[in-house]
């Protein structure tokens, strides 16, 4: 049932009105020729009851009851009920891009408020209206760095999410941008090697903060050095942590990107997520993506519009800053409502819960015979441990016992098959962590 309103009588009247004798004639007059296709795979139509029943059965085949300690850039945070209540208002979710601003003040003001929240959280001056995800935003930041400096070389830290490094390599394959990757040392970014890799052709240096292994590093002096060499400093960040730790803005970064999923967006098997991008004044005019600005109407009343559109594809076509044509608007709204309801003090509390619990779990695990720490860097809510055996095997055994214990680094770092990246959010309880540690000990030594 394809949700069609026209009755047989309507169709008859409308065909007559446009001078067609039947529906075949409609196609002929529209110059569409050729046989009707036969579909082999498409099933017969189902009723709403049947569709919902079928999809509920599929949902049951996903075992979401695992106690989750996997993060690696995608986090299982608590989401207040008010968030989905707002985003499920169909005035928001059934609207199109706000090209008719008088009819879209709800969407536009929400974007303006979102941009404000991102600026204050990241310590940057300008935020766009969002991009697809953290990875595409990071690639776009690199290209922004190339445009601002008119250089075509990017130095990339090996402590950036390997998922994002893969994406940057993929997107750069047809562009004349030289990518230089600087391996990490243990759980740390190699700050001095990164600096040594900058030459007079380098457009930007891209790092992650806290880095992929969870470590928090002070980049303040580093960004000053990057600027001395005429390059742009870019960082991919974890927005929840910024309620607690020094902001990228305070440390002198020019462009900040992030996966905004941590701000009230469901994990939803990988998307839709939220690409966050913010920058300083120097980079603003070269930034890709939609941006909303405040203005006034004919009567002097405050209102909001999309602005700086001369950067975008619908005006500039092949000379645009990017091919991006939408934002992840409903996800940006989700993040805004989350930040509003969790609030100023709430987000700090979330950060405190995460970091205290992470310290607790790390100590518990390091108390188990054979488990060793990897590095001693400060961290937020993620850390790496070394096991006396292949981490994948332990992951498998713990899945069978109801825990998603962490992400084995061997998947992306072949020499680190015995290491696990573990994440703790405010949703994990002391009991769950104790149970995890007990199970881990049993799996390792019984």
């Amino acid at each position, binding site marked *: *049932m394809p949700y*069609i*309103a026209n009755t047989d009588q309507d169709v008859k009247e409308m065909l007559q009105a*446009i001078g067609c004798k039947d529906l075949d004639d*409609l196609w002929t007059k*529209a*110059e*569409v020729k*050729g046989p*009707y296709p036969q579909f082999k*795979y498409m*099933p017969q139509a189902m*009723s*709403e009851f049947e569709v919902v029943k079928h999809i*509920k059965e599929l949902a049951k085949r996903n*075992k*979401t009851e695992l106690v989750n300690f996997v993060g690696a*850039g995608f986090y299982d945070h608590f989401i*207040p009920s008010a968030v*989905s209540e707002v985003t499920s208002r169909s005035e*928001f*979710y059934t*609207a*199109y891009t706000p090209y008719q601003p*008088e*009819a879209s*003040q709800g*969407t536009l003001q929400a974007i303006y408020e979102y941009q404000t*929240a991102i600026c*204050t*959280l990241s310590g940057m001056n300008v935020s766009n209206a969002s991009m697809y995800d953290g*990875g595409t935003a990071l690639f776009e930041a690199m290209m922004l760095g190339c445009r601002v400096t008119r250089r075509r070389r990017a130095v990339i830290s090996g402590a950036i999410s390997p998922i994002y490094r893969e*994406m940057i390599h993929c997107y750069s394959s047809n562009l004349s941008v030289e990518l230089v990757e600087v391996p990490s040392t243990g759980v740390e970014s190699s700050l001095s090697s990164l600096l040594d890799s900058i030459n007079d052709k380098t457009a930007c240096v891209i790092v992650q903060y806290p880095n992929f292994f969870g470590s928090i590093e002070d980049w303040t002096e580093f960004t000053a050095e990057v600027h001395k060499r005429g390059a742009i400093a870019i960082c991919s960040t974890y927005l929840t942590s910024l309620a*607690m730790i*020094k902001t990228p803005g305070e440390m002198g970064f020019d462009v900040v990107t992030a996966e905004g999923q941590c701000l009230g967006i469901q*994990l*939803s*098997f990988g*998307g839709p997520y939220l690409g966050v991008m913010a920058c300083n004044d120097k980079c603003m005019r070269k930034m890709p993506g939609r*941006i909303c*600005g*405040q*203005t*006034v109407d004919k009567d002097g009343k405050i209102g909001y519009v999309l602005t700086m559109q001369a950067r975008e594809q*619908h005006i500039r*076509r092949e000379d645009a800053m990017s091919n991006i044509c*939408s934002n*992840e*608007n409903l996800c940006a709204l989700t993040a805004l409502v989350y*930040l509003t309801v969790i*609030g100023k*003090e709430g987000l700090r509390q979330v950060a*405190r*819960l995460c970091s205290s*619990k992470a310290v*607790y779990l790390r100590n518990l695990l390091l108390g188990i015979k054979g488990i060793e720490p990897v590095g001693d860097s400060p961290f937020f809510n993620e850390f790496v441990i070394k096991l006396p055996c292949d981490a994948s095997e332990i992951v498998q055994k713990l899945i*069978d016992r109801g825990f998603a214990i962490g*992400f084995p680094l061997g998947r992306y770092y072949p020499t680190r098959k015995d290491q696990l990246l573990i994440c703790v959010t405010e949703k994990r*309880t*002391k009991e769950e962590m104790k149970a995890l540690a007990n199970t881990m000990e049993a799996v390792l030594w019984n």
Partner: protein
Amino acid sequence: MELIYEISRKGRKGSTLPALDVPEACPVSEQMLRSIPANLPEVTELDAMRHFTKLSTRNIGLDTQFYPLGSCTMKYNPKLHERVATLAGFAELHPLWPQLRHGGAMSQGALEVLYETERMLSDILGFSQCTMQPLAGSHGELTGVMIIAAYHNARRDKRRKVMLIPDAAHGTNPASATVAGFECRTIPTDERGNVDMAALREALGPEVAGLMLTAPNTLGLFDSNVREICRLVHEVGGLAYCDGANFNAIIGRLRPGDLGFDVMHINLHKTFSTPHGGGGPGSGPVAVVEALVPYLPISRVVRFDDGMFGLRYDFPESIGYIAPFYGNFGIILRAYAYLLTVGREGLVRISQNAVLNANYIRVKLAPYYKQAYNRFCMHECVLTAEEHAKKGVKAIDIAKGLLDKGFHPPTMYFPLIVHECLMIEPTETESKETLDKFIEAMIELAKMVDTDPNALHEAPIKMPVRRLDEALAARKLNLHA
């Protein structure tokens, strides 16, 4: 209306969090703590609900008004889609689980949704396989042209640097081709609104990597030369890309794969009824012919002999990772529900009614608005307010006048090749009564061009704000509170 930051009062809270059940510990030194807290709102949950509910009423949505935006396919978004997308079994599923050993068993339901949606779309589009990974329409375009680049690179055919793009194309086509490393060459449109065949023949050569054709085109017309166009592109060794933004016009009636295209993208948020979200998230799956399957992005969803679903990465010729995971899964799930509801026999009814509705509007408005091309249209009709503009009323004035009459305006000033363009796409989900009311409003506006043009210049007057000063917004940038 006040900003949420203006409502904020120090000390107010809108949420509760669990008490700390472990010793408080701060893993970072004092100097790494942020010096000033982020200035986020401090409001109650009630404050937040009032604020955002009020904001929502300052939006027109598809559920509140007829929304005939051309090229956007604003069809109804069924509510069962929203319901299934929030099922905990999907919403709470971590995307890295299937990448863990034994983790695949944790996400069989989600992998099945991806696998089945790929197969159903391949069937509907007439291609060998498809990927659900692209996160939006323009992201699908980019993926598609990157596949074209990978194909030529694999053949060590380094000459092919040019992408042909008709002048009626969406701006994303040339922008996407540029990001994939191509130079764009524009092909003009002929006097009937088709690709200018002589100009196309002239432009074809050994340096051509491919052609990006929107089919039906952005003028709402079906180019009956489309098979010939694909043949000519193939003849010089290029590949034919179909921009499927307008696929709603031919769904169930034609399959682009059968027409000779090699690769195409579709927009789940257009033809497949997933919500636009005020500008995203969307989803832009890409379908390819057999010869291009090796280049599809990884990871790929597969079904093993034992019936289990899993992920595979061992495709050495793949363009790589274009998305962090498997696409905008929550959107794909909605489209999956739509496909099951529509079923095989429902497909052609979509395009039939979309084309019927558009032509009905076209014919009824013909005495009042000139058609850009005097032909039967497909799913949208492209009109021009050129005659009205001579009397001082532009397309934008008509559009703003419609707002006061309770309708969302059509797309205006696109395609760029039509002056004072108004592009109307009713979709198949609207009733004849709605179309009749819209037609009546458009006719009244056309009459006002002579009787009361000033009212149109002043419109809208019934919206939350009147016309906004966009020049001021761009000159005096105010991008956050």
